[in-house]
């Protein structure tokens, strides 16, 4: 049985996620869309904190909310022109998108609800400290991720170079 606080907390977060997600894709102004995305990301970070993954939550806030959204905002400012912000959706397009999304929601939701394993409650778990995370990242044994880590670093490097090359003024 959870504490009432966490239940309330959960509902706040869930509502925030749902509302801001919907707003993100329904608002007509692109800058607002980015802002709602930011809120969604924060809500996600809150979910991570609730799951006791503090490190992950921190990363989510720092990288996603702090880095990516800022990038979005910059690029929006760079590429937008007056009058661009509002885009009218063709109704056919919207119906198509809506159909797909709703159908997806129904199928996936049905399959979720129809499964009793979905109703497991949260087991207890010890605190994950930074040392554990660091060891898992730096090791090469079972459940340790040095190789993906290195791969990611190479990817990031490539990405930096790629970004420079692509965006460079000729």
């Amino acid at each position, binding site marked *: 049985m959870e504490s009432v606080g966490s239940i309330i907390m959960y509902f706040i977060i869930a509502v925030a996620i749902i509302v801001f997600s919907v707003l993100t894709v329904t608002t007509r102004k692109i800058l607002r869309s980015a802002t709602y995305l930011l809120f969604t990301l924060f809500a996600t970070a809150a979910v991570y904190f609730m799951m006791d993954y503090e490190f992950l939550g921190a990363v989510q806030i720092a990288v996603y909310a702090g880095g990516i959204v800022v990038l979005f905002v910059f690029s929006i400012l760079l590429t937008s022109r007056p009058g661009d912000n509002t885009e009218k959706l063709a109704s056919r397009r919207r119906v198509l998108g809506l159909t*797909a999304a709703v159908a*997806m929601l129904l199928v996936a939701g049905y399959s979720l609800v129809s499964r009793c394993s979905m109703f497991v409650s949260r087991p207890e778990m010890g605190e994950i400290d930074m040392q554990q995370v660091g060891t898992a990242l730096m090791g090469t044994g079972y459940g340790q991720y040095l190789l993906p880590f290195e791969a990611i670093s190479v990817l990031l490097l490539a990405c930096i170079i790629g970004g420079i090359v692509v965006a460079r003024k000729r």
Partner: protein
Amino acid sequence: MDPIIPILILAIPLCMFLVLGLFGNKMSHPIAGILGTAGMGVTMVLAYITAFTYFFSGAPQFIDGDVHLQNIVFNQDWLQFTDSLVIRLGFLLDPISALMLVVITTISFMVHLYSNGYMRDHHGVWETGFQRFYAFLSLFSFSMLGLVVATNIFQMYIFWELVGASSYLLIGFYYTKPSAVSASKKAFIVTRFADLGFLIGILILSFYTGTFNFTDLTSAPVAGMDGVYQVSGETAAGIRNIFQTSAAPIFMGGSVMTWALVLIFMGGMGKSAMLPLHIWLPDAMEGPTPVSALIHAATMVVAGVYLVARLFPLYLMEVTSLDIIVVVGALTALYAAIVACTQVDIKRVLAFSTISQIAFMMVSLGVARPEFHHGIGYMAGMFHLFTHAMFKALLFLCAGALIHAIGSNDYTDMHGLRKYMPVTHITFLIGCLAIAGIIPFAGFFSKDEILTACFGNSMVWYIWMSFVAGLTAFYMFRLYYLIFWWKEHKIHEGHHAPHDQPWTMTLPLVVLAAISCVAGFVPFGNLVTWNGHNMFDHVSFLTNLENLDWSVAVISLLVAVAAIALATVMYKKENPMPERMRRLMPNLWRWSRNRFYWDELYMFITHKIIFNLICRPIAWFDRHIIDGSMDGMAYLAQRASYAIRGLQSGNIQMYVWVYLIGALLLGAVTVICLI
């Protein structure tokens, strides 16, 4: 016999061809002419030596008692197909090949000599391509000699083709003239078609007998005959059995052997211009006249006769094939004789006369049976071949002299030339008398023996051929009178009177005329018979006269004289009788004048049927159906790619949508199945 002489007989003309062909352009005209003529002269002497040695030396390899043997002087492997089927290039000496050596080299030499004068205009300017002309003549002589001395049927076929090619080149000598080009093309293709039959005949024959060699093929004994053709050189083992057993298979109503022999005869029909493959020969007169004399009168066109004679023992085994030869020959003889009566172009008259005379030889071979006068038909055919070669070459060379003098081929431009060209006149008359069969000229004896042979075979053929002989006399004298008599020759302003030609041209005329006078007395019965046996016990100058069947001879003489008399009445002086005759039978005249529309028929077949109904549809089919289906496949692939490339639009949202639909369906299926 030392093979060096036979080798030289073949080698000299070949060398002349190569030398004149490759370096002719660097030589001056007279040198080329002299070189060619001298080469042929040497060849002629060598051929005489060979023939003389063969007939009269009495050497054991040539003659055994009173039998002439076949002798293979040399035989070189040329192309080996299987162990037994080998093409060899060799030199077979037997009565007919020796005879042919003499005929070919004599006529060829005369023509070489004659051409020195003929291939120049009145001002002594040489024809362009004079050297080329001599080169081709040498090539022809080489091929023809190679043909007659062939030791196996495939060697014969090889030289047969070469002869055809050199004939093509010579007919088309004036290659800028479209009519000459088409004539040469026609000659080649028609004879090629006939050669196809020849080739297939060879294939069938060799398949069943397993050999190409004449000595093996012809040594097969004839059932019920005592005369076994003697074989020297190669062995003839096993050929009897092969022939006895292989004659059995029946194909479309005839034994395969009959088919093979008839197909081989088809080759002969093509070369010898038998009906219905005769159409090339009149057109071949587009070539220079000496060529007509050499190739299209005396030598090449009798190759078919020679072929039948060469395989005569085989033909004897399948008498059906001989009957076919007689029918073809008789029809051709009559047809050509009728056509010759109405032609205007003197060379065409001579050409049809040639066809008719060759048909005589064919008939003669066809009616020959060993049981009648030792196969006199065979001897008569060969005899006629010999005499005909002489007098027909003479006639053609005379015609050449006339054409050279007048500049036209039509007798309408000649008339009454006897005073202007006396030598030509006399020699032409001798030729006409010879061909008409007037005693004592050459043609009388040979034609008389042919008629005797026909008489021995069937009364029908005898009467038929006698009638044709009469026609021969008629159309030849018609020609003679129309050229030399009829009305006086008009000399137009500014033209020289026609006159006899230089000695290079008249000498051959005189020589050939002399031969035509005396050739009839050659005792052929002791030289050339179907089985090599002598026909007479002893020979003298008068042997042929003594052995004549006078009942036949008198009748044929009467017919000939009557025909000549008719021609004299009709054509000696300008008179309306010919016109009246024409009105009397207008249809016959028109058909005869138009050569019974054979050319039109062939034109129809080749252009309308073969070109328009076979070639064009096939070409169309290829371009549109076959190629079209290939293009169609490519087109389909292209259409298909156009059709589906819209899916690959680059619109990522579209991709996602399609992907989602797929994923959802899969998901739905999974969900439904799992429940």
